[in-house]
């Protein structure tokens, strides 16, 4: 066999292994999505859910439950999970830190502060917005403000990881302090609202949010995929990546801008849902390695997977109620994380 043919066949076998893992993730997400649609306080039979989806629900209530509650929640869960998983993968490679997550950058803290301000203070707005939309808008705007601050601070020193982490931490503490201040000033009712918002929940899902988040993802994912070889080069270390022409400083800032946008949108719509952005990238890396052409979509899928699993668990654990999903993601995520850690250390000792 000649050189090109041998190289080609080895490459094909590597690719098909990765594509297989990607396909398996897709199937798993699809299965959990269907299960998620089938669970909820209203005990609908699977056939009823399917009929309602097909547009021939047995009664208007079933149609309303499926189309206005369950489907939006499931789709939003899918998208928020994907946004957080994807963001987590990028943040971890960009900061060269496996413990980083989108929240390390302080964006979620800022969004929380924005939401709290909207809930507590009745500020006049030029737009006639409902209370809920106001909260979303404020959360999003403060998150964008935090992003601008982060990028400006990080850009000062050429986008070095240490600078970015420190700038993120400073922003996080700043907005945590501001949030505490707002909470201190809030009435007991407003305080309860803030706390509930901070838990993170898919219960506020509607089609408008879904379209907005889907649009953000469909812009950010291709933009990040275009950077995937350079992101993979970062895994070889700063110096080597720079010598190969990856331009690490500029790469970090560009990747962070996209990730921050995604996180800001996800947090504004669903509150702070922790752990997904931390664990999903590890799960994806174990499956497809660090070729970011495969890692980025896999991390997005793994994020969806974790969030749907948490959503199903939230309904199964306390039947009849909708527990905020943010409480459950960590409980579902911890076994995943421990599984990965143990598997790796077993392989090392075995």
């Amino acid at each position, binding site marked *: 066999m000649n050189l090109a043919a041998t*190289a080609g066949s080895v490459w094909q*076998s590597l690719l098909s292994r990765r594509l297989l893992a990607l396909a398996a993730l897709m199937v798993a997400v699809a299965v959990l999505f269907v299960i998620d649609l089938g669970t909820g306080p209203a005990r609908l039979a699977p056939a009823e859910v399917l009929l309602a989806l097909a547009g021939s629900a047995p009664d208007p209530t079933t149609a309303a439950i499926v189309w206005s509650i369950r489907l939006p929640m499931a789709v939003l869960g899918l998208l928020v999970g994907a946004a957080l998983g994807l963001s987590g993968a990028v943040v971890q490679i960009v900061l060269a830190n496996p413990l980083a997550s989108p929240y390390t950058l302080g964006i979620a803290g800022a969004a929380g502060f924005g939401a709290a301000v909207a809930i507590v203070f009745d500020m006049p707005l030029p737009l006639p917005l409902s209370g809920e939309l106001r909260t979303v808008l404020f959360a999003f705007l403060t998150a964008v403000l935090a992003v601008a601050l982060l990028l400006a601070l990080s850009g000062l020193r050429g986008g070095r990881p240490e600078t970015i982490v420190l700038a993120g931490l400073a922003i996080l503490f700043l907005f945590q302090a501001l949030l505490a201040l707002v909470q201190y000033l809030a009435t007991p009712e407003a305080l309860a609202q803030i706390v509930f918002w901070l838990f993170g929940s898919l219960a506020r899902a509607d089609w408008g949010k879904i379209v907005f988040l889907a649009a953000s993802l469909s812009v950010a994912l291709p933009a990040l995929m275009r950077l995937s*070889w350079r992101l*993979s080069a970062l895994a*070889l270390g700063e*110096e*080597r990546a720079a010598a190969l022409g990856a331009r690490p400083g500029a790469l970090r800032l560009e990747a962070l801008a996209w990730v921050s946008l995604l996180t800001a949108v996800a947090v504004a719509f669903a509150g702070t849902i922790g752990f997904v952005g931390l664990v999903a990238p590890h799960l994806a890396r174990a499956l497809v390695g660090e070729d970011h052409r495969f890692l980025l979509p896999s991390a997005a899928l793994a994020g969806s997977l974790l969030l749907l699993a948490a959503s199903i668990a939230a309904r199964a654990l306390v039947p009849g109620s909708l527990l905020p999903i943010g409480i459950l993601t960590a409980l579902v995520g911890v076994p995943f994380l421990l599984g990965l850690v143990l598997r790796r250390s077993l392989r090392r000792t075995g």
Partner: protein
Amino acid sequence: MIRVQELSVTLAGRRVLERIELEVTAGEIVALIGPNGAGKSTLLRAVAGLVASEGRIQLGIDGRGCRLAYMPQDLAAPRLSVLEVVLLGRLDRLGFKVTGGDLEAAWEALTAVGQEALARRTMAELSGGQRQMVYLAQALARRPEAVLLDEPLSALDLRHALEVADLLRRLVHERRLACLLVLHDLNAAARMADRLVLLRDGRILAQGPPASMLRPQNLATLYGVEAAVLDGPDGAPVILPLRPLEVGLAAA
């Protein structure tokens, strides 16, 4: 070829390199030797364009520029397959979808270092020496005309160090590469390099063929040690370090 003229580098307010003059022609291996902190790695990084410098760095014939590969000392072991790591050597030409040309160049480089059997393995599974070889293949996959290698033998045991040294010599001569490298092992430098550059405190003390550079007096000035220089069985000098010199004498 690589030509460096009046090159100075200042890092954090400290002059690390002072008016360096250096030339490496095609098919030649030039080794930088000197104590820790002499500025050897900084010189490589300056030529690679990774640190800001004053002076002139000319690459290629008449300074027209040439493809350069730089191999730093650290041997990161990401969860990437060996073939992917070698492909990354061609980062500036890689499209989202890998072309046959890129694959062929990567495979040829991997074959040149004799490691094509490792192609599917993950970097994290490899020994330090194997990673060294893979990164060497990555450098070759760029199809460079000049290579800058920082301690290319550091992770290797005796046998592998000999093998890589021979491989490097062969590749440099066959492919007419201009090769500038940093070596701590003086005996390896004596066998490998066509020319040695003695660097101390950011300045070049002397440069020339190994046999004329590796003299007890030079080693005393450079490292502050008393060393015996013996005739090796293959003609290259063999260094036997004996004892550190008194500080006053070393500084003289």
